[in-house]
């Protein structure tokens, strides 16, 4: 997995807490007083356009909504990982994100339960997930 360390995120004043959270093993999302919760980071709530939001830590449970498997690397950093998956995961709290599921690609199932698995020892820790075991396939 170290190959992806060649890519660096664009960190700015708005999304910095998200990346700092990952470094501490937490997946943070934004929750607004209006009830809306979202990712990725924004200065204003996309529902009510106010800035009355706080960062909250996800409990780390979610479901696979969809996924793709890359058979071609669009960047050299991913050549050694082919074929690799990118999944769209919906957190139990509501926000959805693009991520990777650390499992054989053919083990991924629609709406399968996943749990957060951040490797804080990576140069850039990422919010990735693993399959919750014991699910019917």
């Amino acid at each position: 997995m170290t190959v992806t360390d060649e890519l660096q995120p664009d960190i700015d004043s708005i999304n910095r807490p998200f990346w700092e959270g990952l470094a501490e093993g937490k997946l943070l999302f934004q929750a607004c007083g209006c009830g809306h919760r979202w990712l990725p980071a924004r200065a204003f709530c996309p529902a009510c356009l106010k800035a009355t939001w706080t960062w909250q830590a996800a409990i780390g449970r979610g479901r696979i909504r969809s996924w793709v498997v890359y058979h071609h690397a669009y960047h050299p950093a991913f050549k050694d990982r082919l074929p690799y998956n990118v999944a769209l995961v919906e957190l139990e709290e509501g926000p959805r994100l693009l991520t990777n599921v650390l499992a054989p690609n053919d083990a991924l199932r629609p709406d399968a339960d996943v749990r957060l698995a951040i490797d804080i020892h990576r140069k850039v820790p990422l919010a990735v997930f693993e399959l919750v075991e014991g699910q019917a396939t």
Partner: protein
Amino acid sequence: MRGRYVIAGLGHTAYGKLGLDTVTLNVQACAEALSDAGIDKGAVDALFVKTPTSNREILYGQKVAEGLGIQPRWGGAWDQGGAANITLIAWAMMAIESRQCEIALVSYADNPRSGSSAVYGRPRGNDALHGWFSTAAGYGMIQRRHMIEYGTPPEAFAAVAMAARRHGAANPKAQLRAEISLEDYLASPWVVEPLRRDDCCLVSDGAAAVVVMSAARARSLGIDHAVPILGIGEGQTSWELPARETLTSTEAVKAGRLAFEMAGLRPADVDVAQLYDCFTITPLMTLEDYGFCAKGEVAHFVADGRIEIGGELPINTSGGLLSETGMPGMQLILEAVRQVRGTANLQVQGASVGLVSNQGGTMHTHAAMLLGG
């Protein structure tokens, strides 16, 4: 506005790898469109162009106007992805309706084959750290969800690819002229699974243009092959994929409803359709969203050659983005005009109502247009 405006002329360049800059390509297509309409460039007082997808330039509309040697009152470059062509025709209609101009050129050119096609494989923000690259991947994510929710089989996607390739094979101007079978489709290699290579459109150089004016003006100029615009509609979600509440319905719902309402028509009235086919999932969802069949039932709708020439609703009769050229949408408008004129290469006999869809981004934007004689 139904029938008050017409497409009075059309033109296009060759398609493929052309080694020419996009202003030159636009000029070539516009000159042919003016010649087809039988009017002088001096009569043009509006020029609307879509920015080349592969290379954005400041004041691009003015560069094309300079290339054409015209001084339009209205004009410029618009970015809305592949939905822009129909949108620009709508802008032209509204500008003429409000007496801001009288005769508009709408044109598109790009040269990603001779230039750079990097735009199609580009990293998508910080999600690139997860390996999230390319245009294809987003469509693959949508296709997978459609398969999950409705059990859409590979045969449905194959039906779109096979129709486009069959129609393209018959088109002497098409870039890819090779029919495929279901077996060929199934053997086509994965690009971003569940997308196979045969699900993905071409990457092409080329340009295409149309002349828009009022029906009254076309009559007074004696243009006898002008094709009336019956309805036009738009829709935009603008959300990136993770933020969308659904992945299996698009803004085609909104755009289609507006276009059909304006035209006073229903899907059953359509004789031939040119549906944006950047990937095979796109026309399938567009058919559902326009109401040709219920959501989730498109696999049945496209079975048994129904969308091929001779079928109940032939689509993409010149080959579409999958076979004629990868140009994002203007070639579909040209083919719809030819079908209603009765001059298409694979002519649908007696076609009087033609439908065109344009779509941009990862199904971010959608535009629908109905043409009729």
